[in-house]
């Protein structure tokens, strides 16, 4: 067994030590930045070239018209008036340290308001009429934590096969504690007839460091390529946050916060994409992804409750269009196929990619 491991380690070391030799030949042939910047998807490796800088800015507009319940059944939210929209902004920056090592950082911003079904409580007696309507809105808004990551790939020239491994950590840079609610009383038509508008403000940070491990594999056969990946995300430790509660006294809200502990769920993300390089500047592909969360717990009134397991399978037709050597536009539409305890949004995600070799002529 030990002998096998030793041989395996020796082979890996040999490949890495031979890498400069392998690249020294190809560099002379291909170190033309315009050739590298316009390299079609089916001919490029899983990481950036040495010295290449890439910055992405994306916007996702998602319509959450339905969700999947605990049994995987779709639940229509539109018909009950509780559908909602996401606005998701994404930015990342990556740099090719070597031809097979890439460093990157990414973050995102989300704004998502979820309305619950409005309820009216009516009490009529001989002397008075009370009518209280309750509206509830939960808003999730803010930056996500920054993910710092490094990716390595096989140190060989890409021809038809590539394999990469990625490791990263979400640094808890974003606000994670719930902001103070902004409840209001409106439409006061009588002493006991009014509308209560609950508005809870949630943030988007994890609150604790979260590790990320991922691997990608890519095969190309002429104009067709197949790319598959597996990503695992797990929290470094338990976290502590606050939960706001309120009392309504004489139509005025008094807020108080309570501390609670939590452990984020582990998340698995698998995807498989089939690409077709229609021309040198146009790549169309279909991606199928599956996301699953397991484990974790949240504390309520001193008791730990297990987080719900969630699952979502999406199918995404996409294209990547090279506009100029430095600019690329990507667009994908996401359609939810199946899931459990999960939102099922339809979305359009547009990304503009800027790429260049800032330190090379």
């Amino acid at each position, binding site marked *: 067994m030990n002998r096998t491991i030793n041989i395996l380690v020796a082979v890996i070391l040999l490949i890495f030590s031979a890498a400069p030799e392998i690249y020294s030949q190809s560099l002379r042939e291909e170190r033309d930045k315009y050739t590298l910047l316009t390299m079609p998807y089916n001919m490029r490796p899983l990481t950036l070239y040495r010295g290449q800088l890439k910055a992405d800015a994306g916007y996702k507009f998602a319509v959450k018209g339905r969700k999947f319940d605990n049994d995987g059944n779709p639940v229509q939210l*539109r018909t009950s008036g509780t559908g909602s929209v996401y606005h998701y902004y994404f930015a990342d920056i990556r740099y090719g340290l070597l031809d097979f090592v890439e460093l990157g950082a990414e973050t995102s911003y989300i704004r998502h308001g979820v*309305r619950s079904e409005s309820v009216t409580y009516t009490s009529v007696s001989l002397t008075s009429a009370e009518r209280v309507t309750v509206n509830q809105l939960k808003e999730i808004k803010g930056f996500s934590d920054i993910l710092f990551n490094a990716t390595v790939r096989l140190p060989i020239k890409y021809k038809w096969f590539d394999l990469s491994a990625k490791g990263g950590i979400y640094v808890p840079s974003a606000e994670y504690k719930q902001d103070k609610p902004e409840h209001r009383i409106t439409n006061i038509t009588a002493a006991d007839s009014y509308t209560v508008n609950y508005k809870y403000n949630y943030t988007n940070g994890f609150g604790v460091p979260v590790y990320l491990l991922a691997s990608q594999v890519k095969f190309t056969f002429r104009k067709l390529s197949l790319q598959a990946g597996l990503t695992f995300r797990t929290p470094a430790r338990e976290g502590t946050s606050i939960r706001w509660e309120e009392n309504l006294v004489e139509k005025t809200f008094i807020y108080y916060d309570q501390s609670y502990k939590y452990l984020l769920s582990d998340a698995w993300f698998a995807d498989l994409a089939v690409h077709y390089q229609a021309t040198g500047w146009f790549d169309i592909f279909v991606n199928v992804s599956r996301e699953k969360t397991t484990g974790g717990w949240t504390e309520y009134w001193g008791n730990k409750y297990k987080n719900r397991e969630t699952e979502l399978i999406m199918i995404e037709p996409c294209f990547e269009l090279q506009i100029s050597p430095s*600019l690329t536009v990507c667009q994908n539409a996401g359609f939810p196929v199946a899931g459990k305890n999960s939102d099922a949004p339809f979305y359009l995600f547009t990304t503009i990619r800027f790429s260049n070799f800032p330190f090379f002529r």
Partner: protein
Amino acid sequence: MVKYTHILKYLSASAVFFAPFICSGQVEKQLTPAEIKQQTIVTEPVTLKKGFIRSGMLTNYRVADKYFTDDGIKEYYPSNIWGTKSVYNLTFQYGISDRMEVELSTEYMNSRQESQKTEFIAATNTAKTVVTRQKGTGIGDTYVKIRYQIFPETSYRVSVTGNINLAIPTGEKNPTDIRSAEQYDLPVGSGTYALGGGLFARTIFYPYSFTFGLNYTYSFTGRKKFEITDIREIEFQPGEVLDLSLGANLHLNEWIVFSNELTYQHKDKGTVNGHYSALLPLTWSASYRPGLVFQVRRFRLGESVTIPVKGKNTAADPLYIVMAQYVF
């Protein structure tokens, strides 16, 4: 004779010296009709050439999630209501002359509003659920527009085009198929004629083009039912509308244009039965609209999103627009 020889020498030298300048005017590239039809939104003539036809479809989609209040604050709609609006606009443009074009467009509307509310009644210890289903589908209003190049771009660096617009209320203006107070079909038309006019200026510094637009619309008096409880149609008149736009378009490559436009719309208060009404409030909005326009020979495909930045009494949600056009 010697004198004439000198003159001939000067003329010969002048001809050699000025030849490139004279010739430069002669070698200016003359575009064929087929090439003109393949030009992008940056380089194409501001109105269609004589005899050219452009037909297209413009689809826009919006979800009701947020709005600008009377104080200009962007807020979520407070109660649970899900509203969507899709408009499919069919356009036909024809070049009457090299400086004048006419445009005819109509629209198919598809709007929906759905909600579900529960009421608990303490006296009887019962609960009832009120379900609202409203949809508005059908052909909406029709629009006719005439554009004329006052200062044509062939003679001036900045072209100025005047336009006259007419809105014809061909869409259904009243709620129909009323099944209950919560379930009925929404109107798809405005219910009134409107006449407008404006100016549009454009200058091209390839690969850029810069535009400025100013439009005014006056709506005539009309009659319609605002609520399903209205027994008769009520006289109304929408407020005057002022539209301003400022655009900068950039060629990313020879066939893709990145368009940018800042728009401002001001709609004055309208009247109902001759009096100002809360049904037709003063509204204004300032928006930014980025977009990408792809020109593939005579076929044009574009997508853009209108992002409301500031406003009052108006929707605050992005409006998605997809455009497809073909020049015959």
